[in-house]
């Protein structure tokens, strides 16, 4: 039952990279009641080789609070034993991780659904903005919000 599980919760916004294994262990260590752990790692793509780096700007303070609100909503919706969200800001090179979501639960369905929900809402609600720096002389520019991301978030409102 969701009520009797202590939900371990970690939300961090940081410049440095993260260690998925260590973050997962922090949720699962010492527990033998868990049946499922899902991790999602969002990586910086090279966009066919043209991207030199991604610069991620964020709203300090609000970023943590907004992620916290999305995490609370996920915990209301699914019986989760643990949730971790780590989001980076600053300069990120292709191949590096940007965002981590870990969900732990008794059964697989809630871990999958909650992780997917968290990512959809981080995309549309968490105050982060990506700017592309290109390998060539051109400066790149701000990444536009995707209608597909809004649609992905909308599907949880049914």
């Amino acid at each position: 039952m969701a009520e009797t599980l202590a939900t371990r919760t970690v939300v961090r916004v940081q410049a440095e990279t993260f260690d998925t294994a260590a973050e997962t262990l922090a949720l699962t260590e010492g527990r033998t009641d868990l049946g499922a752990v899902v991790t999602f790692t969002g990586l910086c793509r090279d966009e066919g080789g043209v991207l030199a780096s991604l610069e991620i700007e964020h709203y300090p303070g609000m970023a943590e609070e907004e992620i916290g609100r999305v995490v609370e909503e996920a915990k209301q919706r699914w019986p989760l034993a643990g949730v971790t969200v780590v989001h980076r800001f600053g300069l990120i090179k292709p191949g590096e991780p940007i965002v981590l979501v870990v969900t732990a639960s008794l059964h697989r369905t809630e871990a999958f659904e909650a992780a997917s929900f968290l990512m959809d809402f981080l995309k549309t609600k968490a105050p982060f903005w990506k700017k592309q720096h290109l390998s060539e002389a051109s400066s790149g520019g701000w990444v536009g919000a995707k209608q597909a991301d809004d649609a992905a978030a909308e599907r949880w409102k049914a």
Partner: protein
Amino acid sequence: MKALYFAWVRERIGKAEEEITPPQGVKTVADLIGWLSGQGEGYALAFENNKTIRAALDRAHVKHDAAIENAREIAFFPPMTGG
């Protein structure tokens, strides 16, 4: 109150934050956008498609019809692209 600008809103206005003192008649976020748009070329450019601009009052998302009331901090930014 403190105004914060992010991403291309910040770039167009040319600053990340400032103290603003809007006149009495400015009650809502939309009113404030209207007033800020008249504060110079950069502001006008930042808010030219004001439908696309998102706002937060004291670090929580709000719509343009939200009342500013006693908010200490308002932020303007484009749609978010994190994750």
